């Protein structure tokens, strides 16, 4: 075992020698530098390995004396992790920075080396004045290195940083000196013990000086101005080095210092300043136009979060390892992002349109780092945040959780806003870029790979081999972008089929809520990947991500723990986001999708935290929750799932996301993804519905609200669907409306209601998948989604026509097809519950649905064929096959609804203890309201229709055939061609009638929310005036303000 002291001594000795070594040539300098850092990596790694294996923490003495007489250092697990991280960052940063300056200078190398020494000293030392010395080393190293590469901006930022840093070190030094006077020792541990024994008068002020000094060193609000300038002005590679070394070291220093604050009045101040920083820095970041400045705000915010958690670590509510996960996550992700920013080189956010268009590997790196930054699984930040939140929940801090989640949502806004721009111009930007050296990308690649160590925790949380295998194959596909798209689709098809085969009969059963949804998911995935054999993949990574999506959903359904569920939920969210964004115009709608999904995720998370705070760990344990906890958990979960289901009020993300998704993905989004909130409502939220209802007593039934949310969604979306001019948007609104029906059915909380809802889940997958696939085929051939550019395609695409016909009949819920049974059951359930107004409302909206169903088939297939479409061919065969894979079950269900209803009956009976539906014979259903015979109805309808057809053919006037251009102008200026199309503004009279309802109050509301928060951010960030003296003044004012608050107590 090598003494940990050498982790400091060796690089320091090398730093001293480097100017001499440089006489041998710059190469010698570089080699020695890298070798030293490699030595550090090996030694630190070895120590970490031993310590993790249970070796005792290393205590290092200096001067030959034990503490408190000599300065001692410590290397425990936490220190080893940070030291290793520092060495790793320094190593990769050294590679990156090697060629970043025109004239390399040995002094730059020296400073880099000493910076590492400073960080490691800070991490390991247990002496307060020694801490001060290493703070100065780190500070001076930083001041010196920020002029690397970019002279002018680095100078300005560096000077401001130095000015505030010097004020900070005056405060720190004063604090340290007085603490020595007070306790007679400089050893941290010794001092902490003595301080807590005797809180002398005046010690509050001393600790305050130290605290404000450290707030400035930590770059927390309100003293983070110069640090943000530093990110803005300095070479990003230097900032990456600092993130991995100095920033972490200063944070750990402060973590050690919290021992001094125990029992003092400043504990709350630490919490508040930390959280304020997190929220405010994230808020200001949303208005940044410069990438690196935005990253600066983000770093400040992350530090704020970490500092916020420290008092809870002290009090034992949160584990130190949790904070460690967040630190590691931030270091790896932020450094990778900074290197990427350096490679791309564009400072303006808008200049990132289509960045890395021709460098898929770097793009993957960017996406991974962003996902990790915002705390999504499987990356370590997710686990850190989760455990931190659990700690807060158990400790009874709901408000802190709320604020933390709000801040995290802001993080979503600006990070995905950045990705939006990157994805935006991806098609248009393919110019030749300067060749990259491997030294530049080593950091990005290495650190993003390291981020994947979070997968280990994912495995524990999921415990689902199938899910992990699917996701793993997905990752391989993402990386193997050389494989052509259709072949990838085939791999996906095989993988999903294999999963289905494995789970067949065990988990894949319809008589269980999980099994039912799992069936829907796997079936949907197979249909879509089959269709994928016939369509080009929208992006090279498309199928890989798709498989990750499927894997996450499988895990979410199979898992038994709340953590596993939420991890699956979040992976589902980001992977579907990536898929939505992969089409040409998908980046904007995908951004909205992600922000709303993020909000939904945080609502769900809030609900889960209430449950975890109540001691619940597993999904099954949810039923033990009672009282107010049950109600608030239920409300949060229901709200989250409702947002994700695009319920009315939060629906504005859905139409665009559905419409602009790749045509291959929309069927899955509509048919499968939209069912996952239903799964959440039925399995997670419903488990606590009963105690939630009983908590409120008779006074009020919370499920009634959910029912109206569902009802309003169903009605509103149906209405909006009618007036769409775009085939996919029409289906999108329809889809959301249908999910509204399902929510309504679940909200009834009766056997009948659930049967109706679950029946509809399956049915909706079938017909909406069918319709979206059929439309996808049409769009592929016609090249447009607008009704005005279609028409008369019945002759060119007869198979698609039949698909759409069957689809809309099922959708409209009219006999004879499967949709009817679902609607019929729903009405009955509503009447049974006594919600007559809702029943009427739903019947009315079903009628409206006829309008758009007609629109769909009429505008696409009937009417006149456009001249340009005279040679259009039928959709590719895989697409047609996929459609007919969906048609068959629709027809089967139409004739034999019992084949689905029977297992559903068993499911419902399991859940409610009884089922009110009885079956008589093969095709007859009896409920309290009457009976339903599928065959009889089928026969009746066929007879009626055939009769009507014969009547029309014989008695009606003959249709006259006219050409598409058979239009006469009478000297007036012709309107734009699309307005001349027969299907244009088809339902305009109704539109006028509904004008007051349609005015778009909801989107106006969300726009206001966005505008107001942006206005606040814009006004607020003027706080950072850019003047060094103002920043110093803030430091003084902070001391006075905190003194005023804290010392008055």
């Amino acid at each position, binding site marked *: 075992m090598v003494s940990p002291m050498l982790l400091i001594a060796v690089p320091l000795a090398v730093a001293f020698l480097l100017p001499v070594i440089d006489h041998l040539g710059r190469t010698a300098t570089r080699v020695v530098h890298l070798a030293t850092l490699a030595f550090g990596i090996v030694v630190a790694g070895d120590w970490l390995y031993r310590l993790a294996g249970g070796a005792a923490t290393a205590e290092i003495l200096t001067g030959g004396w034990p503490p408190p007489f000599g300065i001692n250092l410590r290397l425990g697990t936490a220190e080893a992790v940070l030291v290793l991280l520092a060495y790793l960052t320094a190593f990769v940063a050294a590679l990156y920075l090697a060629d970043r300056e025109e004239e390399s200078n040995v002094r730059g190398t020296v400073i880099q080396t000493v910076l590492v020494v400073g960080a490691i000293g800070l991490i390991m030392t247990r002496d307060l*004045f020694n801490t001060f*010395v290493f703070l*100065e080393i780190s*500070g*001076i190293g930083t*001041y*010196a290195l920020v*002029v690397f590469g970019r*002279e*002018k*901006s680095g*100078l*300005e*930022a*560096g*000077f*401001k940083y*130095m*000015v505030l840093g*010097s*004020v900070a*070190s*005056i405060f720190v*030094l*004063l604090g340290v*000196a*007085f603490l*020595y*006077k007070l306790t007679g020792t*400089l050893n941290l541990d010794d001092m902490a013990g003595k301080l807590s024994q005797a809180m002398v008068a005046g010690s509050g002020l001393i600790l305050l000086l130290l605290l404000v000094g450290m707030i400035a060193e930590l770059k927390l609000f309100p003293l983070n*101005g110069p640090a943000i*300038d530093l990110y*803005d*002005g300095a070479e990003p590679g230097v900032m990456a080095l600092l993130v991995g070394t100095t920033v972490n070291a200063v944070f750990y220093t402060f973590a050690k210092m919290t021992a001094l604050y125990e029992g003092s009045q400043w504990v709350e101040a630490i919490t508040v300043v930390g959280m304020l920083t997190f929220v405010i820095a994230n808020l200001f970041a949303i208005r940044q136009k410069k990438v690196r*400045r935005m990253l600066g705000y983000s770093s400040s915010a992350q530090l704020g979060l970490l500092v916020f958690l420290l008092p809870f670590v002290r009090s034992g509510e949160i584990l130190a390892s949790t904070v460690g996960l967040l630190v590691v996550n931030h270091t790896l992700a932020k450094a990778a992002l900074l290197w990427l920013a350096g490679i791309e080189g564009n400072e303006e956010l808008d200049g990132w349109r289509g960045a890395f268009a021709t460098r898929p590997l770097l793009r993957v790196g960017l996406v991974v780092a962003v996902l990790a930054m915002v705390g999504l699984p499987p990356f370590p930040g997710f686990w850190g945040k989760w455990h931190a939140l659990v700690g807060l929940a158990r400790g009874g801090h709901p408000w802190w959780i709320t604020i933390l989640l709000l801040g995290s949502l802001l993080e979503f806004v600006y990070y995905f806003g950045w990705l939006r721009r990157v994805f935006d111009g991806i098609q248009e930007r393919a110019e030749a870029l300067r060749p990259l050296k491997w030294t530049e990308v080593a950091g990005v690649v290495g650190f993003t790979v390291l981020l994947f160590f979070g997968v280990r925790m994912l495995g524990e949380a999921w415990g689902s081999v199938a899910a992990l295998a699917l996701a793993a194959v997905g990752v391989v596909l993402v990386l193997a972008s050389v494989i052509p798209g259709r072949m990838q689709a085939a791999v996906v098809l095989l993988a999903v089929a294999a999963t289905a085969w494995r789970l067949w009969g065990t988990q894949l059963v319809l008589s269980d809520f999980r099994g039912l949804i799992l069936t829907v998911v796997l079936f949907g995935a197979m249909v879509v990947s089959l269709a994928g054999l016939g369509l080009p993949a929208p992006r090279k990574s498309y199928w890989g991500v798709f498989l990750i999506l499927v894997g996450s959903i499988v895990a979410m359904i199979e898992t038994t723990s709340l953590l596993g569920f939420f991890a699956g939920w979040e992976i589902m969210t980001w992977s579907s986001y990536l898929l939505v964004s992969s089409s040409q115009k998908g980046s904007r709608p995908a951004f909205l999708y992600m922000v709303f999904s993020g909000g939904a995720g945080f609502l769900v998370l809030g609900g889960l935290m209430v449950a975890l705070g109540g001691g619940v760990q597993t999904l099954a344990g949810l039923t033990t929750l009672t009282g107010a906890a049950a109600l608030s958990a239920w409300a949060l979960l229901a709200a989250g799932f409702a947002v994700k289901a695009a319920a009315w009020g939060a629906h504005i993300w859905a139409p665009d996301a559905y419409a602009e998704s790749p045509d291959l993905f929309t069927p899955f989004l509509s048919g499968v993804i939209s069912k996952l909130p239903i799964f959440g409502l039925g399995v997670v939220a419903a488990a606590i519905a009963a105690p939630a209802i009983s908590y409120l007593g008779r006074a009020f039934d919370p499920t009634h609200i959910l029912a109206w949310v569902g009802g309003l969604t169903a009605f509103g979306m149906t209405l909006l669907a009618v007036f769409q001019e775009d085939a996919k948007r029409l289906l999108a609104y329809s889809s959301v409306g249908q999910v509204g029906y399902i929510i309504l059915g679940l909200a009834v909380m009766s056997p009948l209601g659930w049967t109706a809802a679950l029946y509809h889940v399956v049915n909706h997958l079938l017909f909406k998948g069918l319709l979206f696939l059929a439309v996808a085929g049409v769009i592929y051939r016609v090249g447009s989604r607008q009704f005005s550019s279609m028409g008369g395609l019945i002759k060119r695409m007869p198979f698609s026509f039949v698909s759409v016909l069957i689809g809309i009949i099922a959708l409209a819920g009219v006999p004879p097809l499967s949709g009817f049974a679902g609607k019929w059951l729903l009405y009955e359930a509503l009447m049974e519950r006594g919600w007559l107004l809702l029943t009427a409302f739903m019947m009315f909206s079903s009628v409206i649905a006829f309008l758009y169903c007609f629109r769909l088939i009429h505008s696409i297939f009937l009417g006149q064929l456009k001249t340009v479409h005279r040679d259009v061919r039928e959709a590719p065969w895989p697409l047609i096959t996929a459609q007919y894979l969906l048609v068959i079950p629709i027809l089967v269900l139409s004739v034999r609804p019992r084949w689905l209803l029977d297992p559903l009956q068993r499911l419902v009976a399991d859940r409610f203890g009884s089922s009110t539906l009885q079956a008589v014979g093969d095709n007859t259903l009896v409920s309290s309201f009457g009976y339903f015979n599928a065959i009889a109805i089928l026969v009746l309808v066929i007879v009626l229709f055939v009769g009507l057809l014969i009547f029309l053919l014989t008695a009606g006037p003959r249709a006259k055939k006219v050409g598409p251009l058979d239009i006469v102008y009478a000297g007036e200026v012709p309107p734009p061609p699309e307005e001349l199309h027969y299907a244009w503004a088809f339902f305009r009279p109704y539109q006028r009638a509904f004008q007051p309802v349609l005015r778009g109050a909801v989107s106006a509301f969300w726009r206001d929310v966005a505008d107001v928060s942006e206005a606040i951010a814009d006004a607020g*960030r*003027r706080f*950072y*005036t*850019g*003047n*060094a*003296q103002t920043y*110093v*003044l803030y430091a*003084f004012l902070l001391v006075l303000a905190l003194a005023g608050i804290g010392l008055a107590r």
Partner: protein
Amino acid sequence: MMAGNELYVATALGLIFIGLATVTIKRNLIKMVIGFSVADTGVNLLIVALGWFPNRTAPIIDDPSLLSDRATLAVRSAAIVDPVPQALVLTAIVIGVGVTALMLAYVIRLYATEGSLDVSRFGRMKW
């Protein structure tokens, strides 16, 4: 009659005050650096004053017999000021000159970019 070290503490605080006021109020970069230097001196004075005791001597033991004579040593050591703050200040002074030098190097470079020493010229990065 001064019983304790108030005079030194007050002078030290005065230096810190003057120094920091120079840093925040004077717009000239070199003046700001001078301000830091003055404030540093004040802090150093304060720290030494913390370790000082009236009527005690410097922490130098100049009598070889003390090595064996523990009783006398105890007496003598009660008449010595605290060596630790002095050691800390030695370190702090050297660190201070290092920081000052680096700041001045910055000032020289900043002057080269703008031809001015006015701090308000160097606030382009903001918000």
